[in-house]
């Protein structure tokens, strides 16, 4: 009995902390429409700052808590809203999610930078472990009482806030119709900022409370994943109801402690199950949630993607393969692997172009599907021993199939629901793979066969061999990966141009209209999700073959999130965006950080500087993602639109092409280095629209713009020309000066006034305006 009570108390306390975290999440989601994936990361920053203040600097506990809750939390929320979230109005869900994901990644890199993850940090309970009361034989520590009281106070406080206070009512009104709120004399931005400040403070509070409760040392990744537990709780309340969120959190907390207490000891996987419990509960909640009402009219968003023709795609695919072959001649053998890795990631990113760019659905764990495909391919397709071992094509096909089928299983519960729920389901799946599948390192009996899914935590994935094609050779592998990406890219574009692709686009724009035209949306979603996860699986197997030996660390959720983020940065509606995103995620940043490490080994004096720089780059990656809010269609969209003006002056392009060829020749003969060549070509083509406009203005710009270029600048107006009164008016308007008050004339009768409005301002009136 005492055991039961003890675990009940523990479960309640854990549930209380989940509830605090989840209520902050619900608060910001309902006031800004942004589902804050960085909520856990904010909690993590709070926990680390508390450690820094209280343990390292020795500030008294109460003062530290007050500083964090009254200064740091609100300030963090306010700044997030002011500089990032406020700019996300009128963007698609994926953009909002990606920006918060970028903040998550940024916070994690920042914390790794500021607090070395190798070092163990322990925080103590408030009043220490020894301050407790005993209730019915159960030890309840003061810290745990504080958790329970805080959760109860927050539950009641939020309830009162939303129904009994004007600011709470205004917060709810902000979601409904911000413009109407403006017409009522309120400022929706200020209200949203208040909500963010409050949400961040709740995150910080949860972060401070949870570490001593959950036990163990402070760990950035684990704390960040706290948010998934909070998601599961928030889903109980359909992301809206605070009371139900609290119930969900308590259920979650109790279930996880009871599982540990009462599971039979021979179940060796219980610890893993406990870690995965929130994700499992999340799936169950998704299954029982009632169906959403279909969204009717298209929501006007700022994302715009154009659809290329298949022919154009095929030409570009050819260009890409040729460019790969040409580029291979410039680089040394050691760099080929990085490029292959980048292309493998690009294949995974391509699955997102189809799923998110075309169909508007989300997958936040493409790399985890890659893990499933890799495991299946490893167990079914490796032939031969040692270095001669090769994977056969059957293994590859089975891996892809397994990824597609797993995709179907993951998507099934979320098919009836909005895109955000599918995104949550995939994130939960990613967590499930990391905490259960990839930890199956011991042999276990699976349907009568003894097998370890992930033997010794390390898979040696041999390269593919099909007939004469042997990917054991790096150059062949590179060409194959490039060709596979090109073919899939053309295939994806062809799919978009087919009737199926148009159905996907219709579903994305207006689910209700698509359903009324007789589309079976769940089937459509399921099929596109399966195709997409199959492709992610293919990319994953390629990635594992490129790495040749993979561990659980190669499939962590942050990698998936970076890939999604960088693909959106590139332009998730475009095949080229997928290529850029994949290359950046797989090759680019590893290369940049890697080369900083090499540099610091070569120049030990500057090692510290290089270390800072490499951290800075990781944080910058996150900043790039945050910038998506300004350019939600992605960079490739902007680049292509910029290049389009050059269509009127093709000679500029021919010149640039010739220059590129010359540079290539120089690089080939090793007059300039590969890096110099790459940088010069990149700069040349990115700057080409600007160069072209400068050189060929009269051909490229419309006539008005050319005329505007020739017009006198405002500050020179009237210096060498006469200065009529109209000019003063014009200057006033351009400078935004208030109009001079008209001389008081007797009130014109209504008829007179209307006569004036039809004829416009009378010339005589104009004459009264004399320049000051």
């Amino acid at each position, binding site marked *: 009995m005492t055991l039961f009570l003890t675990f009940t108390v523990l479960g309640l306390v854990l549930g209380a902390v989940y509830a605090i975290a989840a209520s902050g999440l619900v608060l910001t989601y309902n006031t800004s429409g942004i589902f804050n994936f960085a909520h856990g990361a904010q909690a993590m920053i709070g926990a680390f700052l508390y450690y820094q203040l209280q343990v390292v600097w020795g500030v008294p506990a109460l003062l530290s808590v007050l500083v964090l809750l009254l200064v740091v939390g609100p300030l963090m929320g306010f700044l997030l809203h002011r500089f990032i979230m406020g700019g996300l109005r009128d963007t698609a869900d994926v953009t909002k999610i990606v920006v918060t994901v970028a903040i998550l990644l940024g916070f994690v890199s920042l914390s790794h930078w500021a607090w070395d993850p190798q070092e163990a940090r322990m925080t103590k309970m408030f009043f220490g472990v020894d301050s407790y009361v005993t209730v019915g034989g159960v030890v309840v520590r003061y810290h745990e009482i504080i958790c329970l009281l805080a959760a109860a106070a927050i539950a009641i406080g939020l309830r009162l806030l939303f129904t009994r206070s004007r600011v709470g*009512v205004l917060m709810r009104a902000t979601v409904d119709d911000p413009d*109407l709120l403006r017409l*009522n*004399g309120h400022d929706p931005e200020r209200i949203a900022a208040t909500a963010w400040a409050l949400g961040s403070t709740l995150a910080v509070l949860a972060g401070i409370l949870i570490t001593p409760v959950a036990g163990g040392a402070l760990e950035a990744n684990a704390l960040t994943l706290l948010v998934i537990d909070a998601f599961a709780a928030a889903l109980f309340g359909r992301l809206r109801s605070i009371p139900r969120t609290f119930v969900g959190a308590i259920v979650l907390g109790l279930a996880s402690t009871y599982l540990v207490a009462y599971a039979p000891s021979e179940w060796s996987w219980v610890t893993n199950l406990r870690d995965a419990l929130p994700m499992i509960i999340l799936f169950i909640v998704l299954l029982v949630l009632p169906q959403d009402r279909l969204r009717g009219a298209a929501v006007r968003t700022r994302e715009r993607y154009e659809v290329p023709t298949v022919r154009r795609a095929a030409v570009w695919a050819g260009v890409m393969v040729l460019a790969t072959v040409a580029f291979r001649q410039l680089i040394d053998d050691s760099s080929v692997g990085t490029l292959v890795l980048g292309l493998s990631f690009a294949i995974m990113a391509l699955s997102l172009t189809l799923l998110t760019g075309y169909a508007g659905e989300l997958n936040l764990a493409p790399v985890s599907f890659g893990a499933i495909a890799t495991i299946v391919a490893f167990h079914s397709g490796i032939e031969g021993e040692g270095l001669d071992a090769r994977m056969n094509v059957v293994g590859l096909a089975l891996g892809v199939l397994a990824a597609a089928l797993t995709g179907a299983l993951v998507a099934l519960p979320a098919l009836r629901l909005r895109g955000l729920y599918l995104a949550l389901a995939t994130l939960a799946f990613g967590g499930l793979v990391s905490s259960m599948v990839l930890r199956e390192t011991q042999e276990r009996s699976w349907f009568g066969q003894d097998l370890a899914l992930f033997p010794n935590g390390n898979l040696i994935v041999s390269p593919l061999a099909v007939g004469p094609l042997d990917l054991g050779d790096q150059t062949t592998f590179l060409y194959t990966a490039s060709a596979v990406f090109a073919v899939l890219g053309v295939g994806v574009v062809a799919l978009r141009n087919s009737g199926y692709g148009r159905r996907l686009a219709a579903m994305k724009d207006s689910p209700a209209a698509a359903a009324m035209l007789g589309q079976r949306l769940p089937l459509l979603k399921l099929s596109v999700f399966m195709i997409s996860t199959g492709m992610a699986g293919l990319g994953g197997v390629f990635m594992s073959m490129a790495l040749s030996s993979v561990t659980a660390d190669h499939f962590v959720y942050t990698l998936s999130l970076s890939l999604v983020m960088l693909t959106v940065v590139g332009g998730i509606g475009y095949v080229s965006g997928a290529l850029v995103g994949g290359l950046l995620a797989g090759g680019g940043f590893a290369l940049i950080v890697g080369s900083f490490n090499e540099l610091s080994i070569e120049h030990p004096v500057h090692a510290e500087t290089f270390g800072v720089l490499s951290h800075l780059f990781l944080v910058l990656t996150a900043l790039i993602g945050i910038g998506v809010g300004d350019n939600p269609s992605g960079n490739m969209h902007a680049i292509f639109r910029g290049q389009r003006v050059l269509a009127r002056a093709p000679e500029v392009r021919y010149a640039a092409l010739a220059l590129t060829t010359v540079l290539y020749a120089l690089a080939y003969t090793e007059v300039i280095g590969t890096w110099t060549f790459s940088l010069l070509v990149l700069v040349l083509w990115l700057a080409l629209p600007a160069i072209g406009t400068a050189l060929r203005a009269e051909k490229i710009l419309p006539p008005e713009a050319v005329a505007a270029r020739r017009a006198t600048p405002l500050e020179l107006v009237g210096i060498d020309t006469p200065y009529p009164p109209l000019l003063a008016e014009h200057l006033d*308007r351009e400078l935004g000066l208030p109009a001079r008050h008209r001389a008081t004339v007797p009130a014109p009768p*209504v008829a007179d006034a209307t006569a004036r409005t039809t004829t416009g301002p009378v010339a005589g009136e104009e004459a009264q305006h004399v320049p000051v």
Partner: protein
Amino acid sequence: MTVTSPVAGHDAAAPEEPVVELVGVRAAYGAIEVLKGVDLVVPVGSVVALLGPNGGGKTTTMKIVSGLMPTTAGELRLSGRNVTGITATEASRLGVCSIPEGRGVFANLTVRENLWVATGTGTPLAEVEEAAYTRFPKLGDRRNQLAGSMSGGEQQMLALSRALGTSPAVLLLDELSMGLAPMIVSQMYDIVGQLAEEGISILLAEQFARVVLPIADTAALMLGGRIVAVGDPADIEHELSTTYLGG
């Protein structure tokens, strides 16, 4: 730009200043210009009706006056003061009360909470509530019901209540009749007529001209982003019917 002191039509130093005045206003959605130089005057205490077919620029004009949309050229004056570039928040605090097209209510808030939001311009909640429930007893019965669950007419009553309690300087009404039964429409305009008699200046946009003719002092016909005729409502109605019929 920030304008702090309230400009109420009746209190202004020069009472002859029109409460709203647009001078050569142009506005565009992206590259598409929808207002091509609009001149419009709403004198103090009068009711001006903007008439015209769809796509003429009526709603855009309303958005300009209420501050929801920026102008690309021209001037917006409130009681003679140039306030071009004003935000909607500032405009409403200066006494511009705008009931937008469609339902100007928050569907997920209760009736009472909707009125609570209406106190943004400084009127206490009790006053707003009293004004609303006296005029529309139905709303009083439903004060704790979600606004979105009421009928279209009741929602429009709620939207109009904002104008009742907060005594604005000018009231902007955009397509009050949209989607309502004819009987409800005439009830609504009866109330607007009463407001006008109390001295509130009103600018209203309406596609169906006949319903507003009895209460309007002046009518302006809008076509293709310009005001093409201003005058007596009856004359304009005649012109409007010929415009519609292409004669």
